[in-house]
């Protein structure tokens, strides 16, 4: 029986609180506090006859008791909300940081891709950066030379090989970075959200390359928010929650549990949500869907309104939200930054208000959806909530057609019209005539 290629046992990582936010201290401060601490220690020692107990309340576990095994050829998707420990796990697996407890046994080289184009220098040419980046990612010079043409061809930068990378478009830089990384050949490949960047065709290319790698029976650990990518690529899924493994099963199962957990979180008051991003000067306080009868369930083809309660400094604010289907694939995005004459969005410095976005005839197939929404002031992100609201769309008529069930081929319906132009086929006309005469 084959041994697992990667074996994670009771892994834990503890951070000091503030270590990741307040980042670094100054030498002077630390001398001061060391001095104060030693005075306290001496005092405590004199008064109680022993060293003071060490307080340990300023630490938290980003990861605790995490155990799982990965077999050769597994494509494992790791999902979970922000702060669940995904990045910490990847950093330990790619040996960037050490665990506080537990261990990982690897039976193969680990190549990690936590960022595209790590170590690229804008002043160096494409050719120079391929060598530099490849070497940083752990490729030997001979490997890079052997695969150089492939890398260049995949990145589509043949003409610009001797141009400094700073003159590349961001898309070209991205392609080049991914291309170098894609030609790494480790037994275990660890990938973080690299697919979250780049345009659609680039993402398709990345996904294609990754499934090609997966087909070569190599082992991949893949962290992503793109659930449809996880679903289509991964054979297994692990859901992390609060630093521990909540689900270790198939990718579908892990995603289903994840979405259910998001739903239970969403049901709570938005003001209590702590997993938000942004400056926080303006915040969402409520979200709701309203049908024609002011009820929460929406119907295909009926009017639907999305309402957002907002509070804070509303001046110059813009709102954007995205509807996702139950697999986590984005369906449609709405943004009032793209203005139209029918909008009645008055920018005033009210402290609180409710924004509404109305769709006259909802073109969504029956099913479960959720909304992620963000508030911007200028270009500054003020508030962002993932999976803030779940809603159902029930069967109904759209454009005179009855959409009763969702067959799983897309989530959107569109107004359309069929037609058929018949073309007379002389042979068939002849044969049907003969058949007619025979029957007579």
């Amino acid at each position, binding site marked *: 029986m*084959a041994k697992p*290629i990667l074996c994670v046992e009771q892994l834990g990582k503890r*951070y000091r609180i503030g*270590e*990741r936010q307040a*980042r*670094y*201290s*100054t*030498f*002077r401060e*630390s001398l001061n506090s060391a001095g104060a601490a030693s005075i306290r220690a001496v005092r405590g020692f004199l008064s109680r006859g022993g060293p003071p107990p060490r307080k340990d309340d300023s630490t938290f576990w980003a990861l605790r008791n995490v155990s799982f095994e990965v077999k*050769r050829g597994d494509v494992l998707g790791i999902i979970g909300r922000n702060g669940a420990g995904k990045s910490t796990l990847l*950093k*330990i*697996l*790619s*040996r*960037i*940081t*050490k*665990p*506080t*407890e*537990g*261990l*990982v*046994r*690897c*039976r*193969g*080289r680990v190549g*990690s891709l*936590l*960022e595209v184009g*790590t*170590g690229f*220098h804008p*002043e*160096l040419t494409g050719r*120079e950066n391929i*060598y*530099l980046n490849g*070497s*940083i*990612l*752990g490729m*030997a*010079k001979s490997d890079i030379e052997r695969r150089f043409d492939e890398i260049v061809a995949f990145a589509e930068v043949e003409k610009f090989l001797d141009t400094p990378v700073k003159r590349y478009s961001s898309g070209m830089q991205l392609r080049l970075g991914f291309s170098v990384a894609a030609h790494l050949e480790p*037994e275990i490949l660890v990938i973080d959200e690299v697919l979250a960047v780049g345009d659609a065709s680039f993402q398709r290319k990345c996904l294609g390359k990754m499934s090609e790698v997966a087909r*070569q*029976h190599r082992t991949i650990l893949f962290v992503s928010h793109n659930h449809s990518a996880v679903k289509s690529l991964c054979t297994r899924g692990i859901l992390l929650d609060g630093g521990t493994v909540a689900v270790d099963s198939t990718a579908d199962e892990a995603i289903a549990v994840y979405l259910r957990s998001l739903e239970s979180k969403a049901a709570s008051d938005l003001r209590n949500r702590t997993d938000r991003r942004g400056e926080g000067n303006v915040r969402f306080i409520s979200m709701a869907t309203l049908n024609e009868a002011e009820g929460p369930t929406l119907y295909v083809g009926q009017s639907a309104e999305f309402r957002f309660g907002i509070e804070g400094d509303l001046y110059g604010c813009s709102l954007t939200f995205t509807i996702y289907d139950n697999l986590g694939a984005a369906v449609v995005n709405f943004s009032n930054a793209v203005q139209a004459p029918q909008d009645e969005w008055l920018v005033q410095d009210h402290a609180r208000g409710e924004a509404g976005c109305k769709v006259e005839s909802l073109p969504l197939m029956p099913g479960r959806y959720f909304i992620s929404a963000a508030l911007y002031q200028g270009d500054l992100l003020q508030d962002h909530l993932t999976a803030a609201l779940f809603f159902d769309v029930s069967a109904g008529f759209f454009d005179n057609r009855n959409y009763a069930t969702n067959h799983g081929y897309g989530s959107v319906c569109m107004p359309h019209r069929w037609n058929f132009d018949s073309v007379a086929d002389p042979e068939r006309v002849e044969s049907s005539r003969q058949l007619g005469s025979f029957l007579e």
Partner: protein
Amino acid sequence: MAARSDPIDFVIRPSRGWTDIGLQELAAHWELAYYLTWREVKVRYKQTGLGVAWAVLQPVLTMLIFSLFFGRLAKMPSDGVPYSVFALTGLVPWMFFANGLSQASNSLVVSASLVTKVYFPRLILPVAAVLSGIVDLCLGFLVLLGFMIYRGVWPTWNALWLPVFALLGLVTALGTGLWLSALNVKYRDVRYTIPFLTQFWMFATPIVYPSSLLSEPWRTVYGLNPMVGVIEGFRWALLGTKTAPGPMILASSVAALLILAGGAVFFRRQEDTFADIV
């Protein structure tokens, strides 16, 4: 696909107590060290308008100022060679050391994006930073040779020893750089102290004055500053000054090696936390 029968086995675990320096791993990554050094050099000469001229101008301009103030005005003794030659011979290796030291000290912070995204032995960063200074040293050395001949001072056969003294300077720069780079990750005010440190160190090293000002037992003690050995070594090898190395070089070498060993151990002890706090 046939599974490889002898996969590379390794274990990731919390580090406890003393860890070895990891020289083996460092050796396995020599290509990366080479590429990073090469990047430093290439970028330095590509990016600055003056390019190569910097490596030359820095010691030459300083030499001119020193010659004016210390040579002409203060009448500093210079072991029987023209003061300008005397100063430049000290400045070329000193600049190599001082630049290497500050580059190495900032190497981890400057490459924070690498440290937090990819694994490789972190020692490579300060090593590459110091190594990249060798190109500057060679350029500076050519200028020095030209200037010596222009002033009519011919190098002695002892010049064959120069690589040894350059190596001693490199070891000192790297050793100190290891200490400071690890501290710099943790305490960001370290980087502001580096210019002061190098300035103080320069005056504690016989750049503007000869160490022959000191009498013998003290001169050897003075050699505990490894740069004393480097500078006096350069002067002895090139100019044939009488402050022959001997015990002074020994003291300097021992001190340099101790700094390097201590720095390497300290660096390794701190290494695990770099990615978390850089």
